[in-house]
């Protein structure tokens, strides 16, 4: 089954890229790995028949947000000797164990959901037409409020970034 193969390919890609991102000293390399993880997730969205969200994932996350991150990394221009301070300590080991426990807890709860194979979707599920219709009818007020949120974010970033 090709769907299983694609799921494991792209799911494994995102998990691997996220792991590499976390255990990387150089922030530029981290940013590049994170772009890879976002691409894997976009492919998974296509598998879940959500093409609109997949396109947005590539445009907004892998495009805009990661460009912003790399831009700030270049702007800060951190020296290399400042970057070698993330050593493995007993505290970090404890944190990793707690995280594994947390993952097991989440998975244990998720496995209680009854196993039902995905039903075939209706025509145009997750495409721009249908999602847009839903967005501008049922979710009109939250959608308009996101524009206010973005305006607040722009003003906040300007005020924070301004010199005294």
């Amino acid at each position, binding site marked *: 089954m090709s769907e299983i193969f694609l799921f494991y390919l792209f799911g494994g890609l995102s*998990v691997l890229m996220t792991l590499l991102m976390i255990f990387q000293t150089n922030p530029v390399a981290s940013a590049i790995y994170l772009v890879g*993880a976002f691409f894997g997730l976009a492919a998974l969205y296509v598998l*879940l028949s959500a093409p609109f*969200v997949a396109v947005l994932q590539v445009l907004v996350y892998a495009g805009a947000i990661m460009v912003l*991150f790399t831009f700030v990394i270049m702007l800060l221009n951190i020296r290399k000797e400042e970057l070698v301070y993330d050593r493995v300590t007993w505290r970090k080991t404890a944190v990793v164990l707690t995280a594994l426990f947390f993952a097991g807890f989440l998975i244990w709860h998720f496995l209680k959901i009854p196993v039902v194979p*995905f039903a075939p979707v209706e025509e145009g599920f997750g495409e721009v037409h249908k999602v847009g219709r839903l967005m501008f009818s049922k979710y009109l007020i939250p959608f308009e409020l996101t524009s206010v949120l973005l305006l607040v974010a722009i003003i906040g970033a300007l005020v924070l*970034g301004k010199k005294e």
Partner: protein
Amino acid sequence: MITIHHYLILSALLFTLGLLGVVIRKNLLIVLMSLEVLMNAINLLLIAVSRYLGRMDGHVVAFFIMTVAAAEAGIGLAIVVTLFRNRRTIKTTDWRIMGG
């Protein structure tokens, strides 16, 4: 056969990895990137559940989460730039002005 459990477990794994990155890293930029991973895990969960239920509400909510993530990245990076300008470091343990 791929069921919803595959996607739920993948989402839990990604969420845990993001949480791990937020807690163990001291580089503030990588902490912010791990926050993005957390939001992506939630998005994957939403898309998988909307496929499971056959409704598209999850897609719209995932869109809203992306907007919030963009706003958060903008504000967070502005804060990082401001702090770096004042203290010349991006190590989280060097910023204990609130006693944390």
